[in-house]
């Protein structure tokens, strides 16, 4: 019985874990990584209309 149940139980746990994290995505710099210089076009800020780095 246990030989049948244990793999099934393991599969259920794995599926539950997958569902639990389904909404999580990874994007952007991770903790400890450096924010580097990059320019954007300022639309509404103090330098509107110009390229600037706000980093």
């Amino acid at each position, binding site marked *: 019985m246990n030989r049948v149940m244990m793999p099934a139980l393991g599969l259920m746990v794995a599926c539950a874990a997958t569902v639990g994290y389904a*909404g*999580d*995505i*990874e*994007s*952007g*710099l*991770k*903790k*400890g*990584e*450096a*924010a*580097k*210089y*990059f320019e*954007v*076009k*300022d*639309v*509404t*800020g*103090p*330098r*509107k209309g110009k390229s*600037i*780095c*706000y*980093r």
Partner: protein
Amino acid sequence: MINIHAREITDELTSLVSQLDKIVSPATPAGRAGSTHSFVVFLTDDPDELEPKVKDVATKAKLKNIPLTIYDGVAGHPAYKVTKDAEVTIMMWTNRKVDQNFAFGKGELDKDAVKKVVEAAKKHVGAKESSKKKAS
């Protein structure tokens, strides 16, 4: 610093930016000493089409401190590693080292997520302000 990379304009994003605007300092360009500020980067392949919509966000959110900006290229700057499935990516850093990261796929930035990010932002701003006081 609290930075938001966004690919879509939604009511939740506008709400988030509006709430963050009340807890951060006015933006300063890179290289200048400043307290904790924030800026939003909208990623697009059509900056001209997006610009009036971005201005509408600033008006709707009554922004005073957070500048809204556009990056020409929906993929974003490669150094920031914004993945293609992320509708909103939020990074908080101190001395240009990232402390916290939040990423949301399409439709995932809901009211609860906004609340979670605002709470983290308050702690981030508070922590930075207290470390400045200790240093002075």
